[in-house]
C-alpha cells in the first residue's frame, strides 16, 4: 500500500516536472507545476507531514503559482518560447547528473536505509502540534529571521516594480 502510493505520486511528480520544463507555453508549464505541487502534497501526507501538505497547497499552489500566472498574463510576451542554443549542452549535463545518480544507486547499492514502522507516538500528539512546538521553542530565532526575510522581500518587490525608481526612465505615455 505504502509503496503503491509512492509509485503513483513519484511517477506523476516526475512526469509533470518534465512537462514543466518541456512545454512551450508558460501558462501550460504553470498548470503542470500546479499538478506537481498537489502530488508533492500527497507525498507529504504519506510521510505523515500533514501540516506541511496543507501549507504546500495553500502557499505554493495558492499564492506562488497565482503570482506566476499573474505575471505571465500581465506581460503577455509575444515571442517564441523556444529553447536556448545550449540545448544540447544542458541535456548532456542533465543526463550526466542522472547517470551519476544511477551509478551511485547501482554500484554502492545504498545501505538499507532505516525503514520505519508506522509511528504510533507521533500520531497521538499530532503533526501540527509537533511542528508548532518545534517552531516556537527550538527554532524561534530562525522563525523571526524568516519574517524579516519576508519583510525585506516585500519592500524590495514594491521598490523594484514601482515606476521611475530605477534611474531616469524614458518618457512614458500616460
Amino acid at each position: 500500500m505504502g509503496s503503491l502510493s509512492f509509485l503513483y505520486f513519484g511517477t506523476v511528480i516526475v512526469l509533470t516536472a518534465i512537462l514543466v520544463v518541456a512545454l512551450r507555453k508558460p501558462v501550460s508549464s504553470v498548470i503542470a507545476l500546479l499538478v506537481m505541487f498537489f502530488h508533492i502534497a500527497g507525498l507529504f501526507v504519506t510521510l505523515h507531514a500533514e501540516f506541511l501538505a496543507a501549507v504546500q497547497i495553500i502557499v505554493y499552489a495558492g499564492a506562488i503559482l497565482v503570482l506566476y500566472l499573474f505575471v505571465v498574463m500581465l506581460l503577455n510576451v509575444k515571442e517564441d518560447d523556444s529553447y536556448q542554443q545550449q540545448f544540447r549542452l544542458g541535456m548532456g549535463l542533465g543526463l550526466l547528473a542522472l547517470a551519476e545518480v544511477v551509478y551511485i544507486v547501482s554500484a554502492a547499492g545504498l545501505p538499507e536505509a532505516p525503514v520505519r514502522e508506522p509511528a504510533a507516538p507521533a500520531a497521538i500528539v499530532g503533526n501540527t502540534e509537533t511542528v508548532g512546538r518545534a517552531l516556537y521553542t527550538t527554532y524561534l530565532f530562525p522563525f523571526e529571521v524568516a519574517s524579516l526575510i519576508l519583510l525585506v522581500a516585500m519592500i524590495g518587490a514594491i521598490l523594484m516594480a514601482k515606476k521611475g525608481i530605477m534611474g531616469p526612465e524614458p518618457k512614458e505615455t500616460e
Partner: protein
Amino acid sequence: MTPLSSYMILSAIVFVIGVVGVLIRRNIIMILLSIELMLNATNINFVAFSYYLDNIAGQVFVFFALTVAAAEVAVGLAIIIALYRGKATIAAEELNLMKW
C-alpha cells in the same frame, strides 16, 4: 514500506530536471519556475528524512525553504516586470549587459 533511498532518488531526478530547465529555457519566468522545481526536490528530501529519522527539524526546515521561495518569487517577478518595462523582452540571452 518504501525505503528512504526511493525518496532520495525521486528528489534527485526532480532536481536534475530543474537544473536542465534552468539551462535550456530562454524565458526568464521559466527559469524561475525551474528553480521552484529544485526547491521542491529538496523539500521532498527534507520531509522524507524527517519521517525516517523521526526528527521534526526536517519539517521545520521545509518551512524556512518555503519562506525563502516566497521571497524569491516576489523579488524575482518584480525584477522581471522592471526588466520588461525597460527592455521589452524577457529572453535570457538578450539581457547580457553585465555578461562581458
